[in-house]
């Protein structure tokens, strides 16, 4: 019993760690898409931010400076996306795709040129990484059976960025539903003309939304290379931006359902790691590849099966043109 409990806890623990970047990206997607800008460039921003974080942290020796660099990089890419889609009314999917390709190519090229490690960045250690934080009272509470164990094993002991990721959900919810900015943001994704005729600038509002998306993706990227891992590796985002996008759509562009969807993906991923080499009675050993493919397969199934039912913001994907 105790063993199963601990196994469950450690699986959930890794679920949190795996889903943290997904949650950040999904919230980024919510900000961008609720304002009417399709954001498939989550993936590219994530990858570019991961590279910047690792590269700058390696040089400066500080994870926080790396984080700052990651956010700046990601915001710049978001602004590029905004410049193409908002100012020049370009196709949002094409622009997003272009950013993804740009990030994929640029990280490898620059990484190769600067560090000569085949696209990798140097391995980080010490202050150049976000290390686990032991929450106050963990030692003391570990004595308490059940709840104490949960606190120590599951809640305590993550790095700062994981906590930020999960804090981002209530903050996103609060910003969307409880602030003037959120009201306007939701309105501009549904009917930009209503916003314009109310005397609010559609352009400025949408730029602010994509910038927030950029900041969140930047944090997620820093987490990938300086929190979860200790270096940047080629294509290390591995489609997580897309998975976050899928989770966000599956969560109907709402923060809490989006969080749950991300955690579902994270859980599957954690299971995949956990079940490697484990023989399941009656089935035998499940090939690792099968488990690793599961989140992606699930993405396809969820999107194919549920996208029809999810109601997207009405003006999503349509550049705003003033009409008579």
């Amino acid at each position, binding site marked *: 019993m105790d063993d199963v409990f601990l196994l469950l806890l450690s699986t959930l623990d890794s679920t949190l760690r795996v889903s943290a970047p997904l949650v950040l990206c999904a919230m980024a997607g919510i900000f961008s898409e609720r304002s009417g800008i399709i954001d498939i460039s989550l993936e590219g921003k994530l990858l570019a931010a991961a590279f910047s974080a690792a590269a700058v942290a390696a040089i400066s020796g500080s994870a926080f400076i790396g984080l700052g660099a990651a956010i700046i990089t990601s915001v710049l890419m978001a602004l590029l996306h905004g410049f193409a889609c908002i100012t020049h009314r370009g196709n949002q999917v094409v622009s997003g795709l272009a950013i993804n390709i740009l990030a994929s190519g640029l990280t490898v090229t620059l990484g190769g040129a600067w560090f000569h490690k085949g696209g990798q960045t140097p391995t980080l250690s010490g202050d150049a990484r976000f290390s686990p934080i032991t929450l106050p009272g963990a030692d003391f509470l570990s004595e308490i059976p059940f709840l104490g164990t949960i606190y120590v094993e599951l809640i305590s002991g993550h790095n700062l960025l994981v906590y930020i990721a999960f804090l981002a959900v209530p903050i996103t919810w609060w910003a969307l*539903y*409880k*602030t*003037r*900015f*959120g*009201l*306007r943001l*939701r*309105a501009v994704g*549904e*009917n930009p*003309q*209503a*916003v*314009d*005729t*109310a*005397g*609010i600038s559609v352009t400025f509002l949408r730029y602010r939304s994509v910038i927030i998306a950029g900041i969140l993706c930047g944090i997620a990227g820093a987490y990938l290379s300086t929190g979860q891992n200790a270096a940047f590796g080629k294509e290390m985002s591995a489609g997580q931006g897309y998975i976050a996008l899928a989770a966000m759509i599956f969560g109907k562009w709402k923060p809490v359902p989006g969080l749950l969807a991300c955690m579902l993906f994270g859980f599957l991923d954690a299971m995949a790691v956990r079940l490697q080499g484990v023989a399941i009675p009656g089935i035998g050993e499940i090939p690792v590849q099968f488990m690793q493919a599961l989140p992606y397969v699930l993405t396809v199934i969820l999107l194919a099966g549920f996208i029809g039912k999810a109601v997207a913001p*009405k003006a999503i994907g349509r550049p705003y043109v*003033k009409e*008579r």
Partner: protein
Amino acid sequence: MSVERIKAQGSEAVGGQSAPPPSIELPAIELKAISKSFGPVKANQNVDLKVLPGTIHGIIGENGAGKSTLMSILYGFYEADSGEILINGQKKKIHSSRDAISFGIGMVHQHFMLVETFTVLENVMLGAEGAPLLNKSSQTAREELLKLSKEYSLAVDPDAMTGDLPVGLQQRVEILKALYRGAEILILDEPTGVLTPQETDQLFKILNILRSRGVSIILITHKLQEIMAITDRVSVMRAGTMVSERETSATSKNELAELMVGRKVLLEVDKTDANPGEILLDAKNLSYREDGVTKLDDVSITLHAGEIVGIAGVSGNGQTELLAALSGICPLQTGSIDIGPVQITSKNHKNPKEFRELSVGHVPEDRHRMGMVTAFNAQETAIMGFHEDPAYNGKVLMDNKAVQEHCTRLMQDYDVRPEDPKLKSANFSGGNQQKLVLAREMDRRPEVLLVGQPTRGVDIGAIEFIHKNLIAMRDAGSAILVVSVELEEIMSLSDRILVMFEGRIVGEVAGKDADARQLGLLMGNAGTQSKTSSEQQNNNNTTHSEEIPA
């Protein structure tokens, strides 16, 4: 430009309403020599306008006369190339809608500027929230909204989901939105286009209340009877210029129509009694479901030779699906259509081409989407659907000369201007596009002609022409089905009127006996049992959230 301005405005009582003598008052709005061009198109040229406070001022003109542009300039959507705007006598620069709002100008757009997934309260607040956090400001907004609702008798539930409200109430939300922002000058752009006659009456009552509270109202419309019914003064625009200004009580529909078009226009349709002959099309028990929603519910229609049957109804009550079923666009699900000796059922489907071969012509409701390809030139539009006819084809290639000759003849016969078969369809005005599509269908002399919205977006002059041709076709022995949201058009054209509501035919009235009020009640389905009539309930309810059909 000949502006027949009535100089001594002080000497006239305005509309006989509550407005005090205007001589001592500055105009609420004065536009001086406003000009605006879009590329080579002069949308407004030297336009002058004076709106006196506490009056309803109508602006009438055909499509493209520049009414909307002028109002967009006033509301800050565009900036004028030249000219001045004076508000309450003071010169103002309006760069954006925000400026306009701050000067007390509110606008109710033709297409509502509402977020459908928001509550009424959220829509009213949007852009005028006050503080950055919503908690407190939504509380004060709610109080203010309820106060306004009471003061102006504009009952609406602040927590209702806006998209679920009937259009009449959505429009009310728009008016409240403007008042909430402190509007003293209210612009309404074609406000009655989407309303039933009852809702229109309701709107006019509201406008009267607003006027009595000192709000100045600009009403833009192309409907003459509305100008006559509600305005104090009226300005007429034609081709980007202000051609005339009149006191409403001193003018007539005929005079206004003539000013609008620039020549004499026959407003009433001149027709003799119908002489119905044999049955040409007999549709029985048509039902149609789409995505689980019943669009047509057991509809039966008989069309006789030599009569015009009109379908009245608020748009979206099954008229589109009826036309689609009768023209073969949607395969039948249940029921049957007899056209001469041929019977069409769900098992024996015929496509639109085969319907055409059975001599059923169809002028679709939405000409841009279904009636033509706007990127094609006129001669291609003129043969679409009949393009396989050997007359237009050589052995391998199309016979362009024959196509061009055909189009030229149609353009002459149906007065399509400019008479240029090579001109892109999109570059014709709405009326001329419609005449081209009508010409294509009517020229084949079909036994049955289905016409959706014959005069939507069409100028008065062209309306007269289209109506005359439809009557002529009827007299030549065709059966014609007309679907239109313009009740007046249905009443003046039809020999029989059927009213549709939620996919059913809820009433039939002889064309001669038709009366707008009675038809309006049928259109809102107030005639039958307990189904909701938006109008009656709206009069006295504040908690409005019932299941009125969208």
